[in-house]
């Protein structure tokens, strides 16, 4: 039986007004531009794409750090923009975020115990300090740290250990859904695998859902059930992880995958890569048409005029005219 949908994002737009001065033309960054997808219970949706394509903005809009310009986000069937009072509080508890930088995201003046207990206090989950402390010790064990770490400060920990502290804090309030914004990018390869395995283990035990943002495509394929590929604020392709990774359809996904360095000398040295010319256009007042048109080898006249809509191809949605029936 298919698991039920926990998060539904429809035609989401998040814009930033970056106009400087009063007489200049309005300058709008369309960081997320008409993005739709669903995440099911216990599922991991990976989001990949190059720097500035809108991944973090998408994650931050979902946890209500940013207000969307248009579109809706439904969590457990409820439109999150309409939540008030207890429902809003429950949402803030159920949806947590793990941040990219394990150095900047922990308050250096708080002990590890205080950091993990803070959200418990805010959400009033445990009545007594003793209960909070007992749960904190449990969480430290879940993430592979030691109970006596509770009185130490973040500066005494390595990057991987700090990321574990961040994970323990996110888990402190028993969330249902976690937005992981590049949780491993700042870590060493040998430590990345520790954190990924930990996230997978916790997911199984607690039936959590993840939105897993990263730009390391092979790690994303490893952890994700499905993958969404973003470019200039748009979702270009979304579908089952292995399909997207091994049988990409969208010209951008194909180029992106071709650019990943393969960790195998014989294959890597033999492989003729598609080298994309040029760079991502500025997201400020982007031109109409397909966002990828300026770098796409398959682009036609029409791609510069009209913006393609997502097209269903098997289990996948592909936003490209090439797949029109």
């Amino acid at each position: 039986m298919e698991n039920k949908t926990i998060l539904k994002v429809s035609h989401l737009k998040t814009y930033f007004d970056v106009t400087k001065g009063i007489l200049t033309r309005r300058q709008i960054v369309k960081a997320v531009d008409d993005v739709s997808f669903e995440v099911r219970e216990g599922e991991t949706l990976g989001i990949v794409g190059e720097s500035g394509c809108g991944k973090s903005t998408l994650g931050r809009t979902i946890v209500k750090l940013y207000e969307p310009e248009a579109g809706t986000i439904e969590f457990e069937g409820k439109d999150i923009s309409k939540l008030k009072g207890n429902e809003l509080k429950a949402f803030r508890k159920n949806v947590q975020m793990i941040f990219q930088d394990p150095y900047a995201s922990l308050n250096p003046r708080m002990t590890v115990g205080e950091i993990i207990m803070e959200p418990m206090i805010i959400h009033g989950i445990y009545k007594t300090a003793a209960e909070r402390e007992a749960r904190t010790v449990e969480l430290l064990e879940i993430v592979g740290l030691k109970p006596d770490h509770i009185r130490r400060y973040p500066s005494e920990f390595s990057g991987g250990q700090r990321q574990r502290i961040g994970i323990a804090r996110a888990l402190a309030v028993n969330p249902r859904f976690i937005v992981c914004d590049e949780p491993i990018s700042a870590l060493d390869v040998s430590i990345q695998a520790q954190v990924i395995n930990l996230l997978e283990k916790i997911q199984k035990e607690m039936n959590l859902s993840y939105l897993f943002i990263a730009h390391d495509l092979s790690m994303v394929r490893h952890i994700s059930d499905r993958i969404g590929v973003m470019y200039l604020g748009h979702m270009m392709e979304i579908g089952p992880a292995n399909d997207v990774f091994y049988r990409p359809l969208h010209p951008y996904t194909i180029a992106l995958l071709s650019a990943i360095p393969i960790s195998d000398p014989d294959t890597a040295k033999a492989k003729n890569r598609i080298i994309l010319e040029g760079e991502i256009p500025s997201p400020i007042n982007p031109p109409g048409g397909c966002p990828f048109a300026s770098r796409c080898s398959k682009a036609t006249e029409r791609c510069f005029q009209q913006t393609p809509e997502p097209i269903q191809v098997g289990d996948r949605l592909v936003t490209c005219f090439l797949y029109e029936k």
Partner: protein
Amino acid sequence: MPLLKAEHLTTSFITPQGKVQAVRDVSFELNEGEVLGIVGESGSGKSQMMYTIMGLLADNGVIESGKITFDGEDISLLDFPDRKSYDRKMLEIRGNKIAMIFQDPMTFLNPVLKIETQLIEPLMNHTDMTREQARERALELMRLVGIPSPEKRIKQYPFEFSGGMRQRIIIAIALTCNPKLIIADEPTTALDVTIQAQVLELIDKLRKETNTAVIMITHDLGVVAKLCDRVAIMYGGKMVEVGTDREIFYQPAHPYTKGLLSCIAKSGADEKEEELKPIPGSPPDLLNPPKGCPFVDRCSKAMRVCKDVMPEVTSYTETHRARCWLNDPRAKGDE
């Protein structure tokens, strides 16, 4: 004769907490036109090893031992009569024969100078070109590194360039002196994969065309597999294994190298879900590293001898060496 030969490099930093032993008795060689990859965890001593060679250590850095021969010349600090004559020599070498490319191009480019100035000055300093000739050469270099409409671009400032373009400018500046060796310290880490692919392709093309040797410091094994002829693995200030690309990837000898290779999600053709096998624990504290093997606390194969005695080098082939007791006959039966 190798282009670069480093023997027994040992570099420490004096800090209020004590002595950080960043580079501990490291030796290696590099041949002309060769690309050597240097891989290792954050803090394993990769950058400081290169700074030791280049004479660019921070003020609290101390070179405790080491002999460096480059292009037939002894360039070890300890062999110069005084600091001043060493600095003079290194300034000359860095301008003419060795070029460096850093992770963050902005730390290297001067933000208030036009690209033109930053390219033409080194050309005029290192050659007897006239300004006009230097400008021609600068435009040629910009074309070589793939900057479109260089005549227009050369008049711009660094902030008008994107990250990938800035890294190309740095590479163009590095090439102004026709270096024999380029040392690239994580040159593509800050770049997106599609831009990284452009820059790697460029480095590969340049070294084939100009026969420049390259030392590529990176933590990305994919970059190494694509670009390098040989690979050195660093851990806890030691060089724990060195070999050809195929030796390191297909017959790794050191448990750390093996661990590193099984930590990466393979992006090869195989769709089967292989399990990630992380290396437990974290790297040693270089203020107080273990007396024996630096990897001992995380190694599943560790024996009694490993804790107390630094492993010797074992040679597997002409090109393949590792520092581990496992293949040393003297450690047999020591469980």
